[in-house]
């Protein structure tokens, strides 16, 4: 196989990785609807990318986005403006600090110290990747779905768990993941709010 074929294959693999990641996020939307969760940003994927010539491979913002984030809250809580915790999902394709990390699906429950005044503006897409890769650091993270807990200086408590993206093979795994998220969300509710 010549170098062109290698590059074509690499690019197609990435395109398909992204396509399937988006399908996963769409399905999570649908599955979470069953439990009255509503995405905070409609159809938009949360990500950071750069079109600057001065970007670096190790920076947070690169031409190819490093993650796709979605955040959810209960529909009633959004309506009544009393969101105190959110369900935060992140598909992390890579991270600038690390050369070899697997693409992962990270799910989390974030308990907020206050009711955000403006959900869309106050909740940042980079929160979860910052917690996992920059605060806790990937080498310290419990993997394969084990729960991790982190409280930052401002009192934001994050319970998160990671699974290799390639460990998801269909609807069954996604459905299990959503049930786990809802269970942990409800449990966190009892303890925190």
């Amino acid at each position, binding site marked *: 196989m010549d170098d062109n074929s290698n590059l074509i294959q690499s690019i197609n*693999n990435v395109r398909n990785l992204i396509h399937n990641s988006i399908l996963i996020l769409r399905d999570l939307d649908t599955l979470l609807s069953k439990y*009255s969760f509503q995405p905070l940003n409609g159809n938009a994927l949360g990500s950071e990318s750069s079109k600057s010539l001065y970007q670096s491979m190790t920076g947070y913002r690169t031409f190819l986005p490093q993650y796709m984030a979605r955040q959810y809250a209960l529909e009633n809580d959004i309506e009544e403006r009393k969101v105190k915790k959110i369900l935060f999902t992140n598909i992390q394709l890579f991270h600038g600090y690390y050369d070899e990390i697997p693409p992962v699906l990270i799910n989390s429950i974030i308990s907020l110290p206050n009711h955000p005044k403006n959900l869309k503006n106050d909740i940042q897409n980079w929160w979860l990747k910052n917690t996992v890769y920059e605060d806790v650091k990937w080498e310290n993270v419990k993997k394969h779905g084990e729960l991790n807990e982190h409280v930052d200086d401002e009192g934001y408590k994050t319970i998160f768990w990671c699974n290799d993206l390639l460990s998801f093979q269909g609807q069954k795994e996604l459905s299990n993941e959503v049930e786990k998220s809802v269970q942990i969300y409800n449990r966190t509710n009892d303890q925190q709010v």
Partner: protein
Amino acid sequence: MRELLIAEMKGKIPTKLQNSEDLLTSSVIGTFRYLSSSTYIQSVLESSMNIKGRRLLFDTPIKKCLFEFWPRLDDSEPDVLLRLIDANDHEYLLCIEAKFWSDKSSEEDTTIDVEERKNWQRDQLAREIETIHTVDCHKFMKVNQEKLKRIMFVYLTNDTYLHFKEIKESISFVKDIDFSIDHIYWLSWKQIFNVINSVSHFQTPQDAMLLTDLGRLLRKKGLVSFNGFHNMQHVYPYVNRYQYENAHKHYLWSEMKAVDKTIWSYGGKYNG
């Protein structure tokens, strides 16, 4: 019907019709009309859910389903009306309002007195819910009133999530009838793909042929769900030969250095 599906799959439909929700409704829901059993449409309908997260469920298997597409009724023209008869001879009247890229065709104009509002000033879903409760509609569908067990409404959309607010808004504008919000269900096009994908036993070869083609059409239109990374058909040869782990090792920059740099250098003679 099959010819229409094939024409759509092969891109023989005029471009302006390719995003038509009417054509999609006809191709997708219309296919179920020609299948040998009502169990297929029952499975599709049972994958819809209401705003409480409850699935639409029938008490017993549906043995007969009558389809009417775009019936011209007094105040509205719903996309599809279904009269379903179950194994106990109970009847269900179900309306499907299908959307692809568009929203409701009309919203309630609350600036006008409620009694003065014309059809086009009414919330589309509210208007259709009222219509399916009328005697005229029941006569049109030949509903046996004594056996009628439930009237339901299915909002079929291309959304990834349930729009709670939109449904609540529509139900708030329904007037003069008693219709529970529990009987409005949401279904996404991709869930129809899931149902087809999960069929393990087709009752006839014709069913298999029609549903396989329908699945292909939904795939072509992107109305699909995640089905594992192994199912990325366009990259089968690549994925099978190169697992991501191997691919990663293969594409390390150190490997890339083996390529003759001068061929790739930008700048020609100015680059030395």
